[in-house]
């Protein structure tokens, strides 16, 4: 196993809700946060320590840019490591992406080409990062708005090979598969079928929004769509019970709405006969 998260539904916790979670201790099996919001010290970290005292925690990085050809950002990795030491999370994860050139950081999750050379490079960078962090990462498949002319390996096979060679686990984002199917014509079910059963350590579900020209944007700004709930059932049928996380990053509704939506993910797990 790549994580010690419970095989239950968790919720992505954003700063506007953290006080309410501390005060009301809602019945959620675990929480996931973006570590970058807790780098350094102060009120954010103090609040997160209180959450961690009551719940298993996952640190889900968005800023490492593991696949950047200029190499790893040692300062960023060190701050991530400090947070791991401070919080002893049940899981740590990042994305299959890059974010920097030598001149500029784009603060976004930019897609890598699915080529043999990119795979070699990711395996190398991931090995270095996992050495610094002291434990394996889960790596999340991306939603992508473009295909690259160098793409040669199907997404699912790329992820399977990355996991086999680097020892990382996979964080399977079902909304991203769904968005990619619409934007780029990549089959979500083919990706599911290509992933090795033991490699997947966590599942993400979220919502997306449509741009005027028909492009789907992975904004995490709406409830989960029905097609993604269907994918969740398909994924759980294939991989068995896993930690399932609801992500919501923009147009944040009241916490109660997200708890309600999280309980639907728990119901999907319960149908497999699993209890948290």
């Amino acid at each position, binding site marked *: 196993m790549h994580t010690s998260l419970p095989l239950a539904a968790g919720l992505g916790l954003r700063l506007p809700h953290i006080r309410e979670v501390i005060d009301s201790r809602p019945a959620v099996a675990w929480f996931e946060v973006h570590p970058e919001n807790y780098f*350094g010290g*102060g009120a954010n970290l103090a609040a997160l320590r209180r959450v961690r005292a009551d719940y298993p925690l996952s640190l889900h990085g968005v800023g490492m840019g593991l696949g950047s050809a200029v190499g790893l950002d040692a300062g960023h990795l060190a701050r991530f490591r400090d947070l791991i030491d401070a919080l002893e999370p049940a899981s740590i994860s990042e994305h299959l992406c890059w974010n920097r050139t030598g001149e500029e*950081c784009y603060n976004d999750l930019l897609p890598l080409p699915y080529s043999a050379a990119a795979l070699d490079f990711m395996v190398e960078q991931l090995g270095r990062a996992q050495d610094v962090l002291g434990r394996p990462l889960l790596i999340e498949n991306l939603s*992508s708005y473009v295909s690259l002319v160098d793409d040669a390996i199907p997404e699912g096979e790329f992820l399977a090979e990355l996991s086999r060679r680097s020892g990382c686990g996979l964080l399977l984002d079902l909304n991203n598969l769904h968005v990619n199917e619409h934007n780029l014509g990549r089959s979500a079910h083919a990706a599911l079928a290509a992933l090795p059963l033991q490699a997947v350590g966590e599942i993400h579900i979220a919502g997306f929004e449509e741009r005027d020209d028909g*492009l789907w944007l992975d904004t995490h700004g709406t409830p989960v769509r029905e097609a993604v709930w269907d994918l969740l059932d398909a994924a759980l049928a294939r991989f068995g019970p896993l930690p399932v996380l609801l992500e919501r990053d923009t147009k944040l509704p009241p916490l109660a709405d997200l708890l309600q939506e999280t309980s639907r993910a728990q119901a999907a797990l319960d149908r497999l006969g699993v209890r948290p």
Partner: protein
Amino acid sequence: MKLDELQRRFAQALHDAAAAQALFGASAHGASAYANNTLFNRADALAEAYPIVRQLVGDDFFGGMARAYARATPSRSGDLNRYGDGFAEFIRDFPPAQDIPFLADAARLDWLCHLAYYAEDNPPFDLPRLASVPAEQHGSLHFQLAPSVSLLRSPWPVASLWLAHQPEGGDFPSPDQGGEMALAWRNPHNRVQVRRLMPADHAFLAACARQLPLAEALECAMDEDMEFDFGLSLQQWLHDQVIVDFNESPST
């Protein structure tokens, strides 16, 4: 294509339709989503870091100014909380902002508060350890400021301006009432605070920041005000965790 070349061309394709077509083919229309994310992620980070500036100019003006800065200024870190350290200088030279001559200094104070918010935690001051130092050695001690502490000297009443924007209020200062020295830091309750400093207090804390020993820091303060009450000021700074440690030699 080598990965570093591909990533350079990807970056170019965010703002160049022909480059996008060459790299992304039929999916080239998706490149604008990345250009948009990059721009608005940076502008949103500035809105978080510069709340007083945003209140002074309103959301629309702020958004336009933030996007102008974001277009001109690369981010260097995957952590967007580190983005925006040059915004005050940009505002100083931004033609549409010239109507508010104190805006750049308000931005400076916003940034120092932002740094204070995310500064490293520090252990509380060890009073028993200080009590164990013989009195004749006090003059050679080097007091250490908390990692969150910053000082700002401005020709505008920036501390009063900041305080006027807090929930507990404070009178809105007249911009031409004269300059102020401000202390920004995070208090023991993890709240970022700003305080207007008297010249002697500012001189003392600035001397501590320069790693001067107590005897010399006191001289700096007395140069500003012969009546400087060190005992009273020290008591407050220890209580508020402005001064958090001391060394027997300058720290590096």
